[in-house]
């Protein structure tokens, strides 16, 4: 099977995020980057399919020089090849243009199945896998917690958790699958595989190589523009009501209604 995994490099969850000077971006200074948590499940599922049915796993990521480190981590987990998509014109791409860029790269490759994490833990838009399936004209299953693949019948069965029940989807391959955290337990890269990852192919493709012109990508091609970015307001100090329980209760209800406006 030819398996493709799209990954994103995101700030580590333990990093203290600051807004950059322009008020539109995260300040990258001092930020530690990791492979998006949900993408780990995608990479793991891809490697498991390869181990079962044979084939090749190609990991793709759009992003600047630093994403090479994330791609190497996936190679160390067991992926075979990696492709970095970058061009200065890609800067400030929204989920749609990101999916467009990814789709152009994928169209140059043979593929039977495409995995994405269900969402990136930085922007949380959950939309790239959906756009990607549309742009490639493929069936899709999102937030998948269990997956069965039959490469001979070219079919998949995907299980999704929905409120109070489980939804089972059957579809044809090739398809786009977005992965949810229950799907598997991602492996740790072994130390020898980290050393070997360096010898695996890591290709770079720019806008021209993907047949894209700069008007289609980046901020120009985007349907969504970031106007400003700010941190949530710091939590104000809690109020402690003291005194007679009856009085306190009355006061609490009044505050909830008039000040907090939640009831």
């Amino acid at each position, binding site marked *: 099977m030819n398996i493709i995994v799209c990954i994103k490099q995101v700030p580590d969850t333990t990093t203290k995020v600051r807004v950059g000077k322009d008020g539109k971006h995260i300040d990258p200074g001092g930020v530690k980057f990791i492979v998006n948590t949900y993408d780990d499940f995608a990479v793991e599922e891809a490697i498991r399919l390869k181990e079962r049915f044979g084939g090749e796993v190609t990991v793709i990521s759009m992003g600047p020089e630093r994403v090479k*480190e994330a791609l190497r981590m996936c190679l160390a987990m067991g992926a075979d090849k990696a492709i970095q998509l970058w061009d200065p014109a890609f800067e400030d791409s929204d989920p749609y243009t990101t999916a467009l860029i990814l789709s152009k790269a994928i169209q140059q490759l043979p593929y039977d199945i495409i995995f994405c994490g269900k969402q990136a833990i930085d922007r949380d838009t959950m939309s790239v896998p959906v756009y990607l399936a549309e742009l490639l004209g493929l069936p899709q299953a999102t937030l998948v917690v269990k997956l069965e693949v039959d490469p001979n019948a070219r079919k998949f069965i995907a299980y999704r958790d929905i409120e109070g029940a489980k939804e089972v989807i059957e579809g044809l391959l090739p398809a786009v699958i977005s992965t949810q955290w229950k799907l598997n337990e991602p492996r*740790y890269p*072994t130390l020898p595989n*980290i050393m070997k990852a*360096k010898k695996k192919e890591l290709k770079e493709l720019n806008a021209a190589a993907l047949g894209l012109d700069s008007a289609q990508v980046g901020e120009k091609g985007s349907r969504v523009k970031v106007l400003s970015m700010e941190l949530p307001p710091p939590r104000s100090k809690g109020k402690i009501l003291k005194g007679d329980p009856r009085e306190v209760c009355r006061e609490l209800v009044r505050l909830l209604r008039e000040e907090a406006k939640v009831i």
Partner: protein
Amino acid sequence: MDFDLTEDQKLIQQTVREFVQKEVAPYAAYYDEREEFPEEIFRKLALINFFGIIFPEEWGGVGADYVTYALAMEELAAADGSVALSALAHISLCSNHIYLAGNEEQKRKYLVPLIQGELLGAWGLTEPNSGSDAKSLRTTAVLDGSEWVLNGSKMFTTQGTVCDVVVVMAITDKTKGHHGISAFLVERGTPGFSSVKLRNKLGMRGSDTAELIFENCRIPKENLLGQEGQGFIDSLRVLEGGRIGISALAVGIGRAALEESIKYSKQRVQFGRPIADFQAIQWMLADSEVELEAARMLTLRAAYLKDRGLPIKKEASMAKLYSSRACVHAVDRAVQIHGGYGYMGEYPVSRYYRDAKLCEIGEGTSEIHRMVIAHQLLKE
């Protein structure tokens, strides 16, 4: 001058950090309390091939360098000092001695499974009456037909009761001093070989420390490791690499203590503000940071020189001496910052405090390392 780590070094450091923080650190207190050797943790470390870092791929190793080894050892020690010490004895002492001095057959039989974590290794030089003064060794090995017969005992052997194989130094020719000592491979279960677990250590309680006893213990002739009479000379090479390991281990424990101190001092409120606001606390944090960073530099530099095949006798001793002191300082400050809570064992700093002292004693005491350093200075 380049202080940057390579991509491989960074990825291994990051992977080991994530792995040990999740799979090792949460169990450290459990094994410490029970004075139990964490076999399961060892099996887990084998999954990522931790024991193979410094060995070439042809023996199933990772093929990484000593800088990587030092980085990985710091991470492991920051999670659990006892496990790091056990891993150190397994890798730097037992496996590395076999790698440096063993023949093909011995490497196939012992080194490969040691690297895979299928066998657990120990290494015995120290005796009840012979510590830094290795010349006073008393254990003997006499060739009798096709077998060596070992008699004597070894002291403070890490992994002594849980190991599958131990490298033992014994006298084969009394008249030749250092050149009359040879190394032997003894398997667990060999008649005449027994061991006793030594309990109630100050720290490093999750590691197994034992006295080994050899009473007419007969091993096959081919279990001589390296050349006859070269055992002690080989030991010196083995110990040199081991010093980088213990130095990194000290940095790791110290770093964990500093990280806990930073966390606690931001949370603990006295006189209406976090104690981190007080200069008295800030100075302690700053001193620990500077000393640990200096210790890390000395450690990585010794590792860097070793990777280039340059002499590290003085540098390895300097790293070990300084790092173990920096570690002891850092854990002392950490308990002080935690106050009563630090003394009570509710926070991990009391374990760090007990574990740290080993670093100034094991693998050559601080005094011995000062002698080594001075000797190098004066002979130049």
